């Protein structure tokens, strides 16, 4: 059985206990944080396991890359803690179960991963992807399975992920451009944390977009707009990719507005929180986040994750802010049009 590569000593020597003291949802003083964290490290029960919203942020806050979030999830599963209602977990486990249905486009050494998100069928168009057209993997057989971190099911990840790697390896893929952070985070962080070999190079699509834009700098017309960036939970698994947001924005003339809930202090879209903790906390998080975007004077809200888009695009639009996915933002800068838009009729009467 695969085991989390976790180093107890690093936590024993940690002075900050940032994994808990920086948590945006569990407010602990340092002493309590240390005590509760030691309980978790030693396999004992802690209220933290129940209170965790699974926002992933502690994974980023740990200065030693010791994977505190993965450990929390391990302990939740061991203790039978359910971060979300049981039927929701069952639905997710069933939904993404590999069934031998391989959705593969043009096979090549460099391919795009659409994860399990149909939004990318809409988004992936135009010059930015013209040499990658059709080189896509999608669906259960290539699904990164990181979502089970939200549902205290590392056992599912450990069971399925090696086969996913094998499925990608068999295609002969050398570089996989991940359009969803969960995939990139899985291949760059989660899999190595469990000692799972990654037989290809994962490339974050921000890096891909940046390089493509660099190659067509003459075609770029600076957008000269102010935008808020909506970080997503799984970006916490690969915080190093956040610099590409700045790089891309600089390249295409977008000002990343300064606001309270960005970078390390970003708030997630909160739909996972809604599923696990109910509407009150989720509504509060979303309100604080959107109010902050408005206060910062953003014209656009730039989304990275399609799930965040589903959760928040309509809500920011109602506040007069234009929602746009990062891919579409880049397309605007080279004279192309936005593909992913709010449905005109979300509500049919």
């Amino acid at each position, binding site marked *: 059985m695969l085991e989390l590569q976790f180093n107890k000593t690093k936590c024993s020597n940690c002075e900050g206990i940032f994994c808990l003291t920086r948590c945006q949802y569990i407010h602990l003083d340092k002493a309590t944080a240390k005590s509760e964290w030691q309980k978790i490290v030693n396999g004992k029960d802690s209220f933290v396991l129940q209170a965790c919203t699974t926002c992933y942020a502690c994974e980023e806050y740990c200065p030693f890359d010791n994977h505190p979030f993965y450990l929390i999830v391990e302990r939740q599963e061991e203790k039978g803690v*359910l971060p*979300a*209602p*049981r*039927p*929701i977990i*069952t*639905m997710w486990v*069933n*939904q993404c*179960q590999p*069934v031998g249905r391989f959705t593969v486009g043009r096979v090549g050494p460099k391919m795009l991963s659409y994860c399990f998100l*149909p939004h990318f069928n809409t988004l992936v168009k135009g010059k930015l992807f013209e040499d990658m057209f059709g080189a896509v993997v999608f669906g259960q057989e290539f699904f990164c399975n990181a979502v089970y971190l939200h549902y205290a099911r590392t056992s599912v990840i450990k069971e399925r992920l090696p086969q996913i790697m094998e499925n990608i390896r068999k295609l002969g893929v050398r570089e996989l451009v991940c359009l969803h952070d969960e995939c990139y985070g899985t291949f760059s962080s989660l899999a190595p944390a469990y000692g799972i070999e990654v037989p290809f190079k994962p490339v974050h699509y921000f890096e891909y977009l940046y390089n493509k834009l660099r190659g067509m700098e003459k075609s770029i017309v600076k957008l000269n707009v102010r935008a808020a960036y909506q970080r997503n939970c799984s970006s916490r698994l690969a915080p190093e990719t956040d610099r590409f947001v700045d790089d891309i924005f600089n390249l295409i003339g977008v000002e990343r507005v300064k606001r309270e809930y960005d970078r390390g202090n970003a708030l997630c879209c909160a*739909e*996972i929180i*809604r*599923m696990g903790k*109910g*509407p009150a906390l989720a509504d509060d998080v979303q309100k604080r986040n959107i109010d902050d975007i408005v206060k910062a004077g953003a014209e656009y809200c730039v989304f990275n994750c399609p*799930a965040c888009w*589903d*959760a928040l695009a*309509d809500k920011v639009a109602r506040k007069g802010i234009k929602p746009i996915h990062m891919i579409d933002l880049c397309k605007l800068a080279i004279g192309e049009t936005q593909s992913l838009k*709010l*449905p005109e009729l*979300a*509500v*049919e*009467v």
Partner: protein
Amino acid sequence: MVTTNAIYESLTKIVGKDYVSASKEERYFYARDGGLMPPHEPDFVVLPRTTEEVQQIVRLANRERIPIVPAGAGLALTGLVIPQRGGIVVDMKRMDSILEVNERARYVIVEGGTTQGALKSYLQKHYPHLRHSIPDAPPSATVVANAVIHGQGRLAHQHGFNSDMVSGLEVVLPTGEVCRIGSCSVSPYWFSKGPPLPDLSGLFLGWFGTTGIITKLGLKLYPCKKMRDVMVLLTDKVELVPDILLRLSHTEMVEDVVISAQPLPLRFRGTFWIMTYVTGDSDEELEFKRKMVWNAVWDYFQSRDVGFISTSPEGKAPLLSMPSKDTTRFADVAKGGGFQYAGPITPIEKFPAFIRKLEEVAAKYNVFYGSTTRLIGSGHCMMFSFSFSFNRANPDEMARAKKALDECSKFALEEGAVLWKPDRDEQKMMMERMDPNTLELMKKIKQLLDPNGIMNPGNWEMK
């Protein structure tokens, strides 16, 4: 006895030659529906345009003792308009006018062949603040046929069966007289199918065209809110479902509640999906109702037995569509386009037992199954569907599906349910169980209205 040619000529004189057929192709088509009942060809198919033409056709049939079967779109799946004794199929689809909308009294008067889709479009275009209870049948289903079979639609939880929403009828009796039922019998207004008069609509609704042909129907309309949303609740504990339904109903905030259970696609396996619809004229109203729904099941949420799925706008779109397209998708799961369901009307407490039976029977006969349940009234009952899809090109699979359906129907009756839009075999099963005096009353009514037994014979046939 006049000759077939003479009947054909007579029908031609009534409706014109373009609207009568005795051709092989037409007879083949009208001999069957999408379900499992055996086909039987009519001798003629006729498409009248007016009530007077319907009258003349009925008088001809009555005089010549020819079976006559009024038909809407033929979508009941239980063979209700298969002409079991041949004769004349009266296809009502040319009588498709929307005659009147009374905005203030909130009703519409439609002709006997008006479709659900046409009425929906008409209201959306001309009266967007009004709506009717759209069933999850294809848009070609007719308003009258759906009322006649006691169909249920999107307003079933709030207002009951679609037949409860009828506000008046014009009927051609089997002997040819035209009769108005309800307030329209004494008033120019079609606001009530009965009260305060004796409610005679029961002589026609639920009789599957065996007591007359409905040529006009008044239907109650209801406020159409500006916004509509669906909340998807999941539970994996079947025994909780009845209580969840009662709690949702208790809020009096819910437009419609539909429960889905099926093993495929995999995301559905092992959980029951309770689609809960709310409407509002403002974000505030909608949000308030959402909170009421959450509050109704909050303790189940805390115990982790019930969860809510976050659904994207794209994910919600098919759930919000009216009619639902999911039924059609399910109908072709087995590939080959065969689909039928038994839909007993039953107290909601029976949900766990019915689910267990569905799973047992599907395994026994090796057929693909699903179930869609709709809450009717404020928890007064539900329509539980034992649904099976099959490949029409596979006779063995069809036979197994039929056996599965029959076993489920029998079980439902034993459990106290009443079968909805029953096929002729199921009608017999119910009549065998029926109070003998009730059966005798039905028999007397039928004999009184249709002395020559010409109307849709084979249905509600009492010995």
